[in-house]
């Protein structure tokens, strides 16, 4: 099963790596989002004396010195979401052109077809996250890491990101494996996209949300990953209290991932069985 999963995701990843149009747009998209949201939504720019930094708003923004520092994990999460909606369409195409039928005649577990999709989408989304992180570091007034930020901290940030991409990949691969047409896939994706993207703390801290929306925003997977990643970006090595908050967020993401994986396996078994 594991070798089948790797073989199937390898097929897609090989194509993806060879195609320059799969990598370059990620960097451009990251740049546009960071510069556009990073400047237009920057609350610091309303403060006359701050020179673009968050100044007195710093505490409200989790201790980030400037807005892009706060924003970067959020943009990574938003890009993982948009990317996934497009990556998921691969499955629908495979179904339409008969490739899935060919796979159905292979002696591989049906779930490995699903996991092949999950794995390839995680790898692609992680590459996008890495590129976005680097772009955020080099843009003007960009991402400022805590002093003494080391490799462990970097792993801490990307572990949270990996959990988020796993959540999205298990969800959207499940939807795409069940979708019989591109239309039905995009109908579901469009329905999910805006609520998930904009009830998160990707762009603004939780305190900015109205009371009734706060629990939803807090439980949003983009929020969970953003909050966890921000803790590490802003503080470096975490205190015991911060670490437990970080692990709480990761646990939340893990719950999502488990639920979506179970759902994905169910959908894959159903939609890949003999019709």
């Amino acid at each position, binding site marked *: 099963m594991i070798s089948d999963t790797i073989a199937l995701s390898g097929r897609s990843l090989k194509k993806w790596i060879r195609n320059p149009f799969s990598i370059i747009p990620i960097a451009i998209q990251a740049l546009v989002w960071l510069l556009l949201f990073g400047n237009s939504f920057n609350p610091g720019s309303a403060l006359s004396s701050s020179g673009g930094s968050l100044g007195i708003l710093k505490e409200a923004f989790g201790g980030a010195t400037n807005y892009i520092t706060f924003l970067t994990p959020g943009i990574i999460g938003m890009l993982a979401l948009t990317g996934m909606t497009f990556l998921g369409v691969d499955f629908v195409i495979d179904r339409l052109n008969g490739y899935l039928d*060919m796979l159905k005649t292979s002696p591989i577990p049906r779930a490995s077809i699903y996991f092949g999709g999950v794995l390839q989408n995680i790898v692609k989304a992680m590459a996008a996250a890495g590129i976005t992180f680097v772009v955020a570091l080099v843009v003007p007034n960009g991402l400022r890491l805590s002093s003494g930020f080391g490799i462990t901290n970097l792993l801490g940030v990307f572990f949270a990101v990996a959990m988020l991409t796993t959540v999205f990949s298990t969800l959207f691969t499940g939807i795409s494996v069940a979708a019989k047409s591109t239309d039905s896939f995009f109908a579901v994706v469009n329905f999910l996209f805006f609520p998930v993207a904009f009830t998160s703390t990707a762009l603004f801290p939780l305190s900015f949300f109205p009371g009734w929306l706060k629990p939803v925003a807090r439980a949003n997977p983009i929020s969970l990953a953003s909050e966890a990643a921000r803790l590490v970006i802003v503080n470096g090595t975490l205190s015991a209290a911060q670490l437990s908050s970080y692990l709480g967020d990761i646990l939340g993401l893990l719950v999502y991932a488990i639920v979506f994986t179970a759902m994905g396996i169910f959908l894959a078994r159903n939609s890949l069985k003999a019709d």
Partner: protein
Amino acid sequence: MTNSIIQVEKLTKKYGDKTAVDHITFDIGEGELFGFLGPNGAGKTTTIRMLTTITSVTEGKAMVVGYDVSKNPGEVRARIGVVPQQLIADDELTGVENVLLFAKLHHVPSEKARKRASELLELVDLQASAEKKVKTYSGGMKRRLQLAMGLVHDPSILFLDEPSLGLDIQTRAKMWDYVRKLNTENGITVFMTTHYLEEADALCERVAIVDGGTIKVLGSPAELKMRLGGDLLSVQVSEGPDLRGFLESVHDVNEVVKSSSSSYVIKIPRIEKALPQIVDGISQRGLKILDISFTRPTLDQVFLQVTGKQIRDENGPTQAIPLLMEKV
């Protein structure tokens, strides 16, 4: 027949009220090259999809390589090779990568897979393009590549769904060579669907003609053609006495039709023996032969007879045949 590799009994597939395949029964022997013929919508692809475990069986039973397709689909999948009619090889991967991917999915050890892939690519004349991306391939090359993809795990039986669909005549003939070679040299049982009747005639040991979800007739192409009454001789002679009595007396002649005052169509299993006798008899009666020709029956005519329709326009029966067909 040798041991059966496929046994199908009353196999049925219904989609709602529509019956795509209706209680078909047949056996295929090991090493056989079997053709499943029929027009579009006859139930060919549905049958192949049931036998290859893609589609579920509504009623009846199908055993493939000793396993029930409904009860042990995994065992069936491990032993069959499938070449679909759609072009599914991945455009962005190279030919050899496509073959190796299917080797992996069939759990062929990697060293063996490489060896097998290069043998197969050589067999289908793609070794020179093996490292090129499939998007640079022609339609015929893609079909040949899919043949290699379907064979990489050494299946006992190969399912070919419309193997020469969309190929030009030369490429089609080449495809037939590969299939024939696989069957005779490598001993692989082949189950193929096609709507090219001459393809089935050239390749298959036995064919089943399907229409409306049922098997109309099953046998070797030679047998089926023989059932039409064999060869047809058309002869036009100078004006003179009626020759019907004489022609009917010639050994083996089945039927004589006078198509005009001096033209006859003679139905006979094999023309070779009777021809000298007919020619001599005519000249003995003082008549001259103005025109003489004969046609061998084709599967097209068998098809026309059993389904009441022509499978396609080209290569249709000659003028003389419909005349006799009505009487058959």
